[in-house]
């Protein structure tokens, strides 16, 4: 028998691993299938006609299902509504630091989408910039927003603050 007194155990490691079969839902599936074909599909709220992009199962403001026939295709250009420059690494985000996380209002949409900005110097990022989607090569398209790699600046004058301020 050894005389040494062993260290008490104060912390245990406990791995938890569960598997789920996640269901995207009807509305999101339409949206994702559109993306697979390079289409950006918004949906109209049947109550006020506003265009939701990305789509949701229902209009959260009115609690009604989105009109199925109200699916409309949006262009891949829009306006930078607000943003943040991220300098913190995160396990679930593979982007190189620093990167710019953005909220984009696509032309014709009435809600913003979250994405990231590329091909832009940090000091040039500002609210109201006009942006365009940079897509992955078509053969790599999946049912994912990730088909858009990032947004890039368009050589256009800024959108006026009044045109997007209600979306902040």
């Amino acid at each position: 028998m050894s005389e040494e007194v062993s260290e008490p155990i104060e912390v245990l490691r406990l791995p938890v691993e569960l598997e789920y079969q996640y269901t995207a839902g009807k509305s999101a599936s339409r949206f994702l299938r559109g993306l697979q074909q390079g289409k950006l599909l918004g949906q109209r709220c049947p109550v006020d006609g506003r265009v939701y992009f990305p789509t949701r199962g229902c209009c959260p403001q009115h609690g009604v299902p989105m009109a199925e026939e109200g699916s409309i295709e949006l262009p891949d250009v829009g306006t930078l509504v607000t943003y943040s420059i991220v300098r913190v690494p995160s396990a679930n985000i593979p982007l190189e630091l620093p990167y710019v996380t953005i909220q984009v209002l696509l032309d014709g949409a009435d809600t913003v989408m979250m994405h990231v900005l590329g091909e832009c110097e940090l000091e040039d990022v500002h609210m109201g910039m006009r942006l365009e989607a940079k897509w992955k090569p078509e053969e790599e398209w999946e049912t994912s927003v990730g088909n858009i790699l990032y947004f890039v600046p368009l050589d256009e004058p800024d959108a006026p603050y009044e045109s997007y301020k209600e979306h902040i």
Partner: protein
Amino acid sequence: MRDVAVVAFSQSPSVRRETDCNEVEILIPVIHELRTNAGITNEDVDFVCSGSSDYLAGQSFAFVSGLDAVGAWPPVCESHVEMDGAWALYEAWVKIQMGYAELALVYGFGKPSMGDLPLTMALQLDPYSVMPLWPDAVSIAALQARLLLDDGVVSERDMAEVAVRDRANAKQNPYAQVKGDFSVDQILADPYLVSPLRKHDCSPISDGASAILLAAGDRAKDLCKRPAWIRGIEHICEPQDLGVRDLKRSRSTEIAAEKAGVRAGKIDVAELSAPFTHQEILVERALGLGSETSINPSGGALAGNPIMAVSADRAVAHATSGPCLQQNLICVLEG
């Protein structure tokens, strides 16, 4: 105490696996139907309360999207319990008692088919000395069942009779998942799932949602010809440790039933939501129900068990949570 009643109720069908809709999409028509049937709008509702579980959904803050289905605009007075919807109903009842609300919307929803439900439930157990062994919910219930069988508290035939009764009753319920005519001998011939439990001893895993409207006094009478008045609603939680509890009875159900006044009058109908046949027998006994009571005319949890919604559903008698009937809620309703 104020008079409070259930004035409207709606539910989705209980299904083994809802393949088209996500949780919110299951909930939207349920809430929509509730409001339509009751002839009310969001502005009429003073308080909203929901019950759901992040681990069933496999994501944190799963309940937040429930607000989309409510259409919570203008902003609503709202709360959420990380529990079965029955406890959301309880919280709403409390808010009406204190005069904070006259009309309350309660909903529960769950889509446990996304995961391996019995295994997920292992995460409810003591995380230091029990959970690391990953005892699934069926195995835990089987340990309890064998205690009862060995002691002669119940027999396998008693348990099969419960399953046969509930499945036969469920034929009348278009929302139920498992229904039909079975014979006791026939299902006793089935192999064990986790010995000593057979498949018929376990409630099915169901996706679903339900919603209830609660109203106070005159408001209830305005909204509904025959409100179901809540005459008592009580809930009790036992320690979890299986070793220190008396697993051969449901003490928490007994205490809650006593406080809720179950025995103050004849009970015509009892809806019990125990997830296993032997547990349904324990709850029945804890409530002191006799032959004058029709048990689970809807088929009960054993016929369709939208795990977070079971509550908000019928003129509830009973809801449960935790391993081996750890926590129980009893509600006495009168027409």
